[in-house]
């Protein structure tokens, strides 16, 4: 499909034509750009048709089952968009509450922030939250910065952070970027082995980052012991909230001893992923870590008024220009109000039910390396299929031809030919069955005609794309390359 630049016609007016006003009247010529920019000149219908056609070349939850493991692609309720589009929110300039005596002009927005923080505290059992981090990985970095501030304030000399081998790649990357040495420990039988932890645990360890349930979809049942071990060396326990959808109402990370947690509101709390963002990654902390939270923090006065407080001398400072992705956590707030405590618990229960149901239905057809009760997701391995030359990648592509988005593949790294399935609670049984049936059919086709699977996809606008050519040729804009 041609790009909008290729469709551009010089001189064609967009929805707002130029009236010939000259900037030279105000700004000396030597400070102005001379040449044309090369932005598209297209009529409004040209633009509408171009982007409508582009959208039709995309899978999304609205149109396709999207069981992308670890990403919690649940349905995004439409009413939350109505909330986020309310002019009372969209028109608010972020510096408004910084003007003396103007806090009363944005009480509604401050209340949303305060209430969202209180709800997240109750859902996860943490003492306080910051809503500022703008995505999960950003929350992780904030969390590790909090860890560093805590230890520095206590005079602890800590240099290392422990990360299990099943962790998301962002965990070690966040720890390293904050200046820590990353120590990886091997899992045993799919979960953290307290013995392996004991071997690397010493008083240089600042903390450990873990996901629970972990990326294999398994619950870390040694959690209480792990908490005790870390407490002994004054190390903090960090909870990667990517998989919170598995435990709402069943476990609160604060109660079991986590000190820092980041949530992915775009996963658990149903805000749309938008093709890779914007997300929102609030960070919750235990009481002992609260003094270090980013500023500003929203507070409620006795008279019910809300204000922003910047007076936290131990704070790590500013991780966002203002208060984070307000327009995103506003939707999550609306979603939580809609579901309530019972609804959130039901979401978790049905997410776990769906994952186990699919796992059980698939166990005769695919290797399930940890075939026991899983939480909200499970991993399968295409090891039998690989013997026929059909790899996890091929199966993923064949699923696209059937109209499903593929599961996550080749992650976690510790499972061979890994296929990681997270159905979520919002898909009906017919959809789950349809997907399982299609996956079984692909396994059967692998036996009969492996080449057919290797050729997939054949029903989409493009067949497999040459990633090596892309990386070598490096054509990143219309102006690069030949």
């Amino acid at each position, binding site marked *: 499909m041609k790009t909008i630049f290729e469709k551009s016609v010089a001189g064609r007016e967009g929805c707002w034509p130029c009236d010939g006003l000259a900037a030279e009247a105000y700004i000396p010529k030597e400070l102005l750009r001379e040449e044309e920019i090369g932005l598209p000149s297209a009529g409004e219908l040209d633009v509408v048709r171009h982007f409508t056609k582009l959208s039709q070349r995309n899978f999304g939850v609205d149109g396709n089952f999207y069981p992308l493991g670890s990403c919690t692609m649940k349905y995004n309720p439409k009413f939350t968009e109505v909330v986020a589009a309310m002019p009372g929110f969209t028109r608010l300039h972020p510096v408004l509450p910084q003007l003396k005596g103007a806090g009363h002009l944005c009480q509604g927005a401050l209340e949303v922030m305060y209430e969202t923080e209180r709800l997240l505290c109750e859902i996860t059992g943490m003492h306080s939250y910051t809503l500022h981090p703008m995505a999960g990985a950003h929350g992780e970095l904030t969390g590790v910065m909090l860890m560093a501030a805590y230890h520095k304030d206590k005079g602890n000399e800590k240099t290392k952070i422990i990360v299990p081998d099943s962790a998301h790649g962002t965990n070690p990357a966040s720890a390293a970027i904050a200046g820590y040495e990353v120590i990886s420990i091997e899992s045993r039988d799919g979960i953290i082995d307290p013995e392996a932890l004991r071997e690397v645990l010493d008083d240089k360890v600042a903390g450990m980052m873990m996901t629970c349930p972990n990326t294999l979809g398994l619950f870390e049942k040694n959690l209480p012991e792990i908490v005790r071990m870390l407490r002994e060396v004054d190390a903090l326990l960090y909870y990667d909230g990517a998989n919170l959808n598995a435990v709402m109402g069943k476990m609160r990370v604060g109660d079991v001893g986590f000190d820092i947690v980041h949530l992915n509101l775009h996963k658990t709390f149903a805000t749309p992923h938008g093709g890779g963002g914007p997300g929102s990654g609030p960070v919750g902390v235990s009481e002992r870590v609260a003094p270090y939270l980013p500023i500003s923090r929203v507070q409620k006065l006795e008279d019910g008024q809300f204000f922003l407080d910047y007076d936290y001398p131990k704070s790590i400072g500013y991780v966002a220009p203002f208060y984070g992705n307000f327009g995103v956590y506003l939707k999550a707030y609306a979603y939580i109000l809609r579901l309530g405590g019972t609804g959130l618990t039901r979401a978790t229960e049905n997410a776990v039910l769906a994952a186990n149901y699919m796992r059980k239905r698939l166990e005769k057809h695919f290797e399930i390396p940890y075939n026991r009760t899983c939480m909200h997701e499970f991993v399968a391995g295409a090891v039998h299929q690989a013997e026929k030359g059909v790899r996890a990648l091929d199966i993923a592509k064949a699923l696209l031809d059937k109209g499903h988005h593929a599961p996550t593949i080749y992650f976690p790294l510790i499972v061979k030919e890994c296929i990681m399935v997270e159905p979520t609670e919002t898909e009906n049984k017919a959809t789950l069955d349809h997907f399982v049936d299609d996956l079984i059919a692909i396994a059967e086709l692998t036996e009969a005609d492996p080449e057919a699977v290797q050729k997939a996809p054949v029903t989409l606008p493009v067949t497999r794309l040459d*990633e*090596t050519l892309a*990386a*070598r040729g490096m054509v990143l804009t219309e102006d690069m390359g030949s």
Partner: protein
Amino acid sequence: MIPADLKYAKSHEWVRIDGDIATIGISEFAQEQLGDLTFVELPAVGDTFEQGAEFGSVESVKAASELYAPIGGEVVEINEELEDAPEKVNESPYDEGWLIKLKISGEPEGLLDADAYKALIESEAH
């Protein structure tokens, strides 16, 4: 393919010693494991490395791997053709796909001969 006249590091670099000049590359096994290379990052002429130090990296679409000096020395030449043609490392790892030449300083330790290297990769493959 493991040429008998070369020495190998456990991190899969090979080294060919000619007087006080060492030519360095990565093994057939290493390039196969990485897949089609898309980028080779090399040091500048004049940089010096101890044995075992990181001197660059190679990237494919799905993997990246650091390169470690199998022998210490000063860089006297780099294979500039790899900038535009990283595939040479895949096509000809022991010849046209060489990476750098070092002026050797000090004796290398713990390098493997072809047989020992063959044993190493056989054990890694299992």
